[in-house]
Structures are given as structure tokens and as C-alpha cells.
């Protein structure tokens, strides 16, 4: 049935036909009788990557198939959300090897976006932990891994669903002693200091920074670095230590409807940033916290995306090579001069990665939100030009508007990727609004 679909940014909202399946047989039959198909998980990519003529939801294909509590090998169908994975594995002393800032994404989506987390510099992206997976390609069901059907494997990791429908994934979990994180928050007065702090704390498994994009002058780039390690049993307090693998009960908040867009104006964003940065903060704060607020601070507020109003927002995330510090400053300056603000700006230093089409590369990545408004896309095109100039690229999972040349110029293996997609998706059966826009499937 046709209905209006939008992903997390609520932009764009397009008429799509969405169906689902709970059995492989139903999926095969669907794929054999439809064209212009794109897989869609929990709709947490921000833009149009999982929108298309026929979006096929994987959410009912969500069974766990294998879990070895000795080795941490875990296999599930692609529609299972990370939230569900955590619910199953944490009580047994295991954790996701890599997790993005929300647990409400599917495992299939994690692979198709090759998601990264706070531990990218130390443990790589999600694909780094995959043992093997199954993909229903345009030429049939195939298993692939780093050692078999490698072209398919690499074009599927970060390949935005263009090689076909990922149906199941086996990956290796990470051993934990407790469900808690020992975290440290360090204040940085400006951009130079935060980048220095990233270096200084690089031995921590997890690190990221909140950066205040509205500051100018000597506070330009004012940030808070947050680093963490999985806490050992002896680091918990008595109450936490009673059931170290169980999280304390928590409150659930939700934004029940779209807020008028003026709610998130320059003033409120500044107020939020000031509160967060807080003058009375100590320079360094240490605490032991449950994993949820550490990894998923925004998941605590359901539908926070509605805070941006009904016109939606785009999240802009780019990465610049590690030797292009001046580029980061230039782009941040352009953003702060424009003052179009961002409720959330996250800065992180990626470790080395050089895969076929995955987003991460060694360098600086910044993610920020822009409510959709008149003139925004022209401004983002200007930012794109800066990103290109400094040899960077944009994250396809967040993208809703990039011009196709930007993609082809910034992803060095784009041609090779497109060639492999052609092999497994010869008739362009699998395609999204995004892949058509970027001329990946024409």
C-alpha cells in the first residue's frame, strides 16, 4: 500500500509502497515479482537512503538464530534491532562490538551503513566484526565474508542496500564484566584543546566530544570530551555491584508531536549548550554510569526528531583526513558564522579505515543537525565544496540532498563499487531515491 514515508530527519517525506516479510520465502517471492526495491529497517537513517518505489521492511524478520555464550558469536535475521540484541546478550556478559548513537537501528542497517561508534579509533566500524552474512542479491541468495564472495561482502558493507537485501548476519560480540561504563568528561576551552585532548586520551576504547558550534572568538570550538571503558566488577558501587549485568530501571520520555520549529532557535540552542557545558563543571569529571546514557543519551527521549518541527531536518556529517585540521576549523567557522545552529554537534576522531565504500577514514568527523529552512541547501552545498576541497566526504546514511558530483568526487572507489553493484544487481532491481539521485543506479 502506498503511504508517506520519511526516515529520522522527517525530510524528505515521499510516497512509497511499503511491505514486509517474516519468512525468506515471502521475501523471495516479493523480490521476484517487484522491481525498484530497497530494504528498510527501523527508519533511523536520516534521509532518503531507504526510501524508494518499493520499500521492503525487514522489521518482522527479526529472529535470533545463534548465540554462543562461550565465544560471543551471534547471528540474527537482519531486521532485529540492536536494542533487542542488547537485551539478549548483556545479561550473559556480552556487548555489541560497535554501536552508533542509537540502539534503535537494525542489524541489517548497521551493515548497510557500516556504522561506527565511539570506539572507531580503537575497534573499527561494524563490518570489522562480521563473520559472514547472507544477501538476497539480484542473482539469488548468497553467503559472503572476508574470505568468500569478497566483492559482494565489501560492496554490501556500507553499500546502502544496493547489492540486495541483507537477510542474516553473524558477528562477534565483545565480552563485558558489567553493564556499566567508567566515564570521564573533560572540558576543552577551544578547538585546539579538544583535538589535543583526543590525542591525549586516544588509549581509551571509547571517545567522542560534544562541540558547541555557536561559539566564536577565543571559545571557538569549546567542547566536552567524553571517554570511557567498560567498567570492571570492582569499579561498581555496592548497589550497582549486586547485579552487575542488569541496568537500573529508567524513565522514558517522549516528544509526543512535532514542536513548532521556533522552539529550537538560536537562543534555546545556546541555552542548551551553556547548560551542558556549565560554568560550574569541574575540568575533569569521572563517574560510573549504566551503558545506556553513555552510548544512547538521546534514545531516552523518544521521537526527539519531532523537536525540529514538521519540515524536518537534515543531519550533516562529514569526515576530513587527519592532516586537514585547518579544514575542520574552516568548516566550523562557516557554520558558526551562519548561526543556523545545531542542537547536537558531535566531534570524533576516526582511526584508520580504507574499505571499498564505507564512510570512515582516519581523520575528524563532525555531525550536526540543521532544521530544513529556506536557503539551507544552498548553504550545505557551500559546505560540501569545503569538504571536497579538504579531501573529505559525507556519510550516506545521513545524506538527503548531496549533489551527485560530490559523491563521485569524494568516494575514491565509487567507480569500482558501482561496477560490483552492477554484477549483483544487474537490472537495477535494488535502488533507492538516494541511489538514483547519486546516479549509482541508472
Amino acid at each position, binding site marked *: *500500500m502506498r*503511504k508517506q514515508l520519511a526516515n529520522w530527519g522527517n525530510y524528505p517525506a515521499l510516497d512509497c509502497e*511499503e*511491505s*514486509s*516479510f*517474516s*519468512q525468506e*520465502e515471502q521475501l523471495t517471492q516479493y523480490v521476484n515479482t517487484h522491481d525498484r526495491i530497497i530494504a528498510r529497517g527501523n527508519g533511523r537513517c536520516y534521509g532518503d537512503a531507504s526510501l524508494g518505489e518499493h520499500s521492503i521492511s525487514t522489521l*518482522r524478520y527479526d*529472529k*535470533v*538464530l*545463534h*548465540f554462543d555464550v562461550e565465544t560471543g558469536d551471534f547471528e540474527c*535475521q537482519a531486521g532485529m534491532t540492536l536494542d533487542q540484541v542488547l537485551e*539478549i546478550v548483556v545479561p550473559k556478559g556480552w556487548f555489541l562490538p560497535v554501536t552508533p548513537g542509537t540502539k534503535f537501528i537494525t542489524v541489517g542497517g548497521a551493515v548497510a551503513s557500516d556504522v561506527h561508534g565511539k570506539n572507531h579509533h580503537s575497534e573499527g566500524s561494524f563490518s570489522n566484526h562480521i563473520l559472514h552474512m547472507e544477501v538476497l542479491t539480484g542473482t539469488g541468495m548468497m553467503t559472503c565474508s572476508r574470505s568468500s564472495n569478497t566483492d559482494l561482502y565489501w560492496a554490501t558493507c556500507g553499500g546502502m542496500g544496493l547489492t540486495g537485501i541483507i537477510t542474516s548476519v553473524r558477528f562477534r560480540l565483545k565480552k563485558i564484566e558489567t553493564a556499566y561504563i567508567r566515564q570521564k568528561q573533560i572540558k576543552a576551552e577551544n578547538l585546539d584543546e579538544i583535538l589535543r585532548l583526543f590525542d591525549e586520551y586516544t588509549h581509551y576504547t571509547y571517545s567522542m566530544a560534544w562541540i558547541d558550534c555557536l561559539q566564536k572568538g577565543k571559545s571557538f570550538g569549546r567542547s566536552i570530551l567524553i571517554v570511557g571503558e567498560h567498567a570492571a566488577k570492582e569499579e561498581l558501587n555496592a548497589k550497582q555491584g549486586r547485579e552487575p549485568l542488569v541496568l537500573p530501571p529508567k524513565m522514558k520520555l517522549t516528544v509526543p508531536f512535532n514542536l513548532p520549529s521556533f522552539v529550537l532557535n538560536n537562543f534555546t540552542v545556546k541555552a542548551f549548550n551553556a547548560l551542558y557545558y556549565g560554568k560550574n563543571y569541574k575540568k575533569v569529571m569521572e563517574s560510573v554510569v549504566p551503558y545506556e546514557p553513555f552510548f544512547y543519551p538521546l534514545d531516552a527521549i523518544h521521537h526527539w526528531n519531532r523537536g525540529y518541527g514538521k519540515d524536518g531536518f537534515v543531519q550533516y556529517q562529514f569526515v576530513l583526513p587527519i592532516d586537514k585540521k585547518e579544514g575542520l576549523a574552516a568548516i566550523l567557522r562557516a557554520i558558526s558564522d551562519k548561526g543556523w545552529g545545531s542542537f547536537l554537534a558531535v566531534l570524533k576522531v576516526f582511526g584508520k579505515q580504507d574499505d571499498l565504500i564505507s564512510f570512515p577514514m582516519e581523520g575528524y568527523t563532525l555531525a550536526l543537525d540543521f532544521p530544513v529552512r529556506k536557503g539551507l541547501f544552498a548553504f550545505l552545498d557551500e559546505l560540501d565544496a569545503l569538504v571536497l576541497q579538504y579531501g573529505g566526504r559525507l556519510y550516506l546514511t545521513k545524506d538527503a540532498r548531496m549533489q551527485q558530483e560530490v559523491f563521485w568526487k569524494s568516494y575514491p572507489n565509487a567507480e569500482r563499487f558501482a561496477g560490483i553493484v552492477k554484477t549483483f544487481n544487474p537490472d537495477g532491481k535494488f535502488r533507492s531515491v538516494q541511489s538514483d539521485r547519486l546516479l549509482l543506479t541508472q
Partner: protein
Amino acid sequence: MAVAIARKYATEKYAVQLAARKPEQLYALQQDLQIRAGVPVTTHAFDALDFASHPAFYRQLEVKPDIVICVFGYLGDQQAAQSDWNEAARILHTNYTGAVSILNVVAEDMAARQSGAIIGISSVAGDRGRMSNYLYGSAKAGFTAYLSGLRNRLFHTGVHVMSVQPGFVNTRMTENLTLPPLLTAQPEEVAKDIFKGAAARRNVIYTKWFWRYIMFIIRNIPEFIFKKLKL
């Protein structure tokens, strides 16, 4: 919905027997329940429309269930079924005859054992026939009446029967309908309501709860007005 109910009972540490037309399609769910809950899970072939096979199906179950939950259903295509008897028969037989056929067998066994519980998933569509789905609705109306009678009979043997009247639920069956989000339940919510209702030995539950009141109003619209509505 069946998946959510099975998961709910498994996580409450019930052993689960799964039955479906193609038992090989239950393999993934079996793994899922075992891994999540560590309870024994078995799979069985069962075809709601093959009435003759029902006694044998039940007989061959090595362990007779304490609770039987009848979740199968078929919404069908009302438009097509108005002129195509095969479609109409499939709707009636899946939702009514098939359910009666298997629950008769179960009821006999539980009555003899003087213990057990039967949970039938009917539908608010059975509370009043409407032009958009009265074939499905009439089969569910029959099923609701059947459950009510069965409850009356088995009460005297100590066997409990609960009727479940779901409103809109987000399942594969309804994915081609436009459902109002505020009135629509997730299967997990329905499963939770069923588990709680059964534990409290409720007779009839509506899920979400407000459907009891919505249906009260709908049942009480005078017929001379109701027939003019396009529902």
C-alpha cells in the same frame, strides 16, 4: 502476533509448542525463543483448514499443553469474497470452522483432565458486521460466540476460556490497511495484555483497552442509522 505471544510466554519461562502449516518456517522462531529464554520449544505441523487432521495432530503431541492459544486468522479480500466463494470459504473456514474444529478436540481433553486454559484471539470486527469486512467479521462473531459458550461449559470442569478482542494491530495481516496510529497496538502490547489477562483469569479482554468502549458505542448505534454509514 503469534511471534509476540510466543516470546512473551517464553520469557515468562513457559515451555512452548509452536504449530503452523509449514513447520520448517518455525525453525527460526524456535531458535529465537530458546536463545532468548532458555525454555524447551518444539515445532509441529498443523493446518487449520485440514479439519480431519486435527484429532491426530492433538493426539501426537507428546506433552499436552496447559494453555492453548489459537492465533491463526485470515483477513482475506472482502471485495473478492463477495463474488468468489473460494475466497469467502477460506475466510470463514480459517477464522471460524478451523478454530472450532481444533478447539473442540482441545476442550475434550482439558475437560477430561479438569485443568487447562484456552485463549482464543477473535476480533472487534466480530462485534458488529460492517460493509468493509463482514465476511471476516461474521466468522469472528461466530468464533466469539463459540468461545463464550465454551467458557460457560468448561467453567464447570475448572477449565478457563479467555476471549481476546483486539482492535487494530500492526501485523502483516493489516499492513495493507491505513490504520490510525493512536488506535493501533503493537503485537508486543497485545501479547502483554493477553499474558496479564490470562494470569488474572479474565473472561473477555479488549486490546488496546479502549476498544471495549469504542465497540460499546458502535454496537449501540441504531440499525437504521448504522446501515447508512460507510464503515
